[in-house]
């Protein structure tokens, strides 16, 4: 599809907006609808749109497969790490109250970190699955 001028220009404008919107959904999830899962999917959608218009090879240059695979694992590690951290600080597993002096602040930190983990994993998994599907049977990648 890379010969379509309108698609290329429109994609170049839309992709940064989608990335920014994903971050908005991520960090505004405490106040409105949204959260890590939705933000991860939207973040992945931006890269998938880029891959659809500009091709897999260029997307691989921006975002190699090992990065998305690492993202998928790092997110789960962040989530589990928060749980282990709360245990180390003397609370129960995923008991965010101990993360800060004030329990409510601790809850805020915990939710922020946990949502970050969810977003990282979902983003990595979505893009990686798309990569695997799209690269199937192609010799040139």
């Amino acid at each position, binding site marked *: 599809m890379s010969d379509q001028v309108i698609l290329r220009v429109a994609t170049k404008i839309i992709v940064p907006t989608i990335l920014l919107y994903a971050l908005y959904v991520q960090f505004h999830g*405490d106040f409105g609808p949204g959260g890590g899962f939705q933000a991860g999917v939207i973040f992945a959608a931006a890269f998938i749109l880029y891959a659809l218009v500009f091709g897999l090879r260029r997307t691989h240059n921006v975002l190699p497969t090992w990065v998305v695979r690492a993202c*998928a694992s790092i997110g789960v590690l962040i989530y589990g790490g928060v749980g282990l951290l709360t245990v180390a600080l003397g609370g129960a597993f995923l008991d965010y109250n101990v993360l800060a002096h004030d329990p409510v602040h601790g809850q805020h930190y915990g939710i922020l970190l946990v949502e970050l983990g969810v977003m990282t994993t979902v983003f990595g998994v979505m893009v990686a699955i798309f990569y695997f599907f*799209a690269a199937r049977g192609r010799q040139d990648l």
Partner: protein
Amino acid sequence: MGVLLDFALLAFLATTALAVVRTTNLFAAVMLAGIYSLLSAGLFTVMDAVDVAFTEAAVGAGISTVLLLATLALVGSKVKTPQLRITDISAKVPLRRPIFPLVVVLVTGGILIYGTLDMPSYGNPENPIHQHVAPRYLEDSAHEIGVPNVVTSVLASYRGFDTFGETTVVFTALVGVMILLSAMRRKDRFGEERWGEENVPTLYGGFVTKFRLDQDGRMKAAPEDRDGEGGGT
């Protein structure tokens, strides 16, 4: 107004579902599935479940449509119609209209609808689901968690362990896809990745591997089954 919107959305949903079943063009079916997801998202929004609607719109209408399209790029968008053999036509095989599956479906559907008659009505505050832990979450979330969106506080804090499980499930899905789709990629001795034949599933639930690795690490096609045990691969 809300009821009218519900009816319109549900009618669209039913129509789209029927169209997905009826169409033989897989590209149209994928697009209709995306429309189905978008309509469900609208229905969730009418039910005030905006977080769920958000997820449905992003995953159902967005990502899964793209994944299905990527699959269509590999398999083509036409349903393969079974070829009638000459003998079938000459023998005038009557068109089979299986009645038994229809009866099973109707009876099961009837039982399910009968079951819903005993369920509490939708949105009733006296329902058991609103009496269990929901009041505690709604009342204590503001000063315990301090997050305005109660969905987030339930998801990430009260039910953080469940969400950890869900994240792990997503991760496990990737591992499964990776194992299934990248098992065919092998590096030859020059360090270049090569595609082998697939592992072809047989009718009996096993796999017939159509490639093997030679002694020097290069891939060779597996020798043909001489006694025909491969089962039409």
